[in-house]
């Protein structure tokens, strides 16, 4: 057992864990806001929506569908020029952020759109009958009523996003994906791969647990 543990360079393992958490938290944060904005726009501009607009809907839907369909490993490569413009480099944890966000936000946007569609039409009608503006309907009705769907959707998105941070690791983003591939797989040190996997699993379980807990707490139905 102790020999087994000695095979692992723990300081660099913890450093990688930190990088993975860094990528997850920062990209999760941006994915959340970008996803809600895109999801709201999809919902509002859809047919019979509050701001029905076929052109805007078509453009956003196309963007969302395209970036949701491109395999992540290809997306990273395609976005290298954009990454260099925004971050200034294509290596390191920060350089992975643009592609992780652009990969995950459209996915979350669709979940947001579905969540908003589940908001009772009658409640929206009631708000209109009370003289609410469209903006008030968004802030006071749509988003608060959809909170359980928004949190459960975010839980699913974060877990998918962690998978993407590991994949980004293979192309030099750092984090648990890099350590598992470089020092584990390529150096033929299976212990490292195993430990990195276990840490990722622990992070996923914690996110799932916390996400489920929050979703239960905010759901007053």
């Amino acid at each position, binding site marked *: 057992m102790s020999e087994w543990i000695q095979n692992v360079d723990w300081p660099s393992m913890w450093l990688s864990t930190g990088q993975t958490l860094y990528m997850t938290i920062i990209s999760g944060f941006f994915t959340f806001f970008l996803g809600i904005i895109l999801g709201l726009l999809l919902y509002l501009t859809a047919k019979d929506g509050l701001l029905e607009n076929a052109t805007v809907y078509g453009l956003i839907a196309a963007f969302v569908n395209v970036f949701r369909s491109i395999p992540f490993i290809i997306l990273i490569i395609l976005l290298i020029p954009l990454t260099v413009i925004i971050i200034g480099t294509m290596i390191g944890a920060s350089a992975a952020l643009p592609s992780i966000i652009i990969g995950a936000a459209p996915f979350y946007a669709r979940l947001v759109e579905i969540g908003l569609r589940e908001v009772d039409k*009658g*409640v929206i*009608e009631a708000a209109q*009958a009370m*003289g609410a503006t469209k903006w008030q309907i968004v802030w*006071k009705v749509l988003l*608060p*009523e959809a909170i359980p769907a928004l949190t459960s959707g975010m839980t699913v998105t974060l877990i998918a996003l962690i998978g993407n941070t590991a994949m980004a690791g293979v192309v030099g983003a750092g984090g648990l994906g890099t350590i598992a591939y470089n020092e584990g797989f390529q150096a033929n040190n299976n212990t490292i791969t195993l430990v990195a996997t276990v840490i990722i699993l622990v992070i996923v379980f914690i996110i799932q647990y916390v996400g489920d807990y929050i979703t239960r707490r905010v759901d*007053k*139905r």
Partner: protein
Amino acid sequence: MVTDLIQLSNIKKTFQTEHGAVHALSDVNLEIKEGEIFGIIGYSGAGKSTLIRLINLLEKPTSGTIMIEGRHLTDFNERQLREERRTIGMIFQHFNLLWSRTVAQNIAFPLELTKMKKKQRDERISELIQMVGLEGKESAYPAELSGGQKQRVGIARALANNPKVLLCDEATSALDPKTTDSILSLLSKINKTLGLTIILITHEMAVIRKICDRVAVLDKGRIVEEGSVDDVFAQPLQTITQEFVGIHQNPERADFSEKIILSLSAAKKPLLQKKLSQLLGNKFLSVNVLGRQSEQESQAEKTLVSIQGPPETIRSVVNDLRSERVTIEVFESK
């Protein structure tokens, strides 16, 4: 002199669907007086929901005008319309409360829209909670309330901004009879104490009977009868109104004369035989069995009978047969 608060003139509403145009409302003219409770009754699909939604312009009329206090609602821009809607309360069949908000927060919603200060708002909320009898439920969520309590929250919310009219969209249709009564009493109390005009739509005559001053009967998008509830009850002119009032309880709307021919059938032979012997034993009627026909598969037996006698007796016999599990067909009623 009582003035018209709301006036609908020559309203027409047509929906465009894949299967062509559907005329939801045609030639609707209505005047609603200040302080009255006005009921609109009709079967589902008659256009009631569309009609009540025209009054706060949740539905736009295809043609015609809607006037409130002499002003044309149909000419308002979006901002004016929002202002106007704040003076028109509305309650719904399915309550339409925000489940993410507590009772007090739900009632606060319309007050937040008008940007009322927090302190004033809290005072107003406790007044309203008292008015609808929900003391102690302030911090409960809608999911924790009964149907009647939810509708009380709906009423408090609708009254928050002191509206001049309250629209009730089948407000008691999802409630049991006892709860319906308590909600109707509350509406009636509000009408009397606040002098609030109430317009309600329903498919239940009991609702009209209990609280309305005047009633309009809506059939296939047209108002076929209108007047004070007492008059309409005393002398319903239209068949559909008679059905609601309960004079015509037979679904086939048949008028009986002195002789009819009936075909009777029942799933169970003994029931049919019992009914037949009752018919034959009726001393006011002359009954002849014309023929029998057995259907082997279903074990149902059809019997053709001619009945002669006073029309009222025939009607009551027919109604009695219909209420039992006997299927009848009237072949001739002349």
